[in-house]
């Protein structure tokens, strides 16, 4: 049986609101790092999480397959990844499913 005063409840509500505000700000900051289509609606929280995961996974894989080297004679055409163009911006979403 919990006995909380009105004041305590109100203070707790305030703390929770502030916590949510800071969490949502963090979501916003993450959203700005995820490439999206020009007139797309702002990503929902769930979308932000899923796309961020996917995006990071794609980039990490890119790094793995094409490690930095002075010479860059490592595997080239096998993956069919094109270097030197930034069009990967939104293509990464079509990559899986």
């Amino acid at each position, binding site marked *: 049986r919990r006995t909380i005063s009105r004041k305590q409840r109100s203070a707790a509500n305030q703390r929770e609101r502030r916590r949510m505000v800071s*969490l949502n700000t963090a*979501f916003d900051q*993450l959203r700005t790092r995820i490439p999206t289509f020009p007139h797309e609606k702002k990503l929902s929280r*769930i979308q932000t999480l899923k796309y961020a995961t996917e995006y*990071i996974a794609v*980039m990490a894989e*890119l790094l793995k397959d094409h490690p930095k080297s002075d010479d860059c004679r490592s595997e080239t055409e096998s993956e069919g990844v094109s270097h*030197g163009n930034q069009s990967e911006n939104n293509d990464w979403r079509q990559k899986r499913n």
Partner: protein
Amino acid sequence: KKTKSHKNPSKDVLRGRRQAANARERRRMNSLNVAFDELRGVIPGLSDDRKLSKYDTLQMAQSYIDALKEVLSKQESDN
């Protein structure tokens, strides 16, 4: 014949609706939490038993994306 369509739902009906809404919300929250875990899975963070908080996960993901982008762009300019 007149039916009392959509007026005065019984207490049972109301309770059922609340329960259904609660269940939907639980499922929604659960899917969100699963997504958080999956994000934790691709970023550097603490171990399984002491995982990153939601806030830290979001912050870390953002810095990690920035870092990856920088490494990748350096990589492209080296090639």
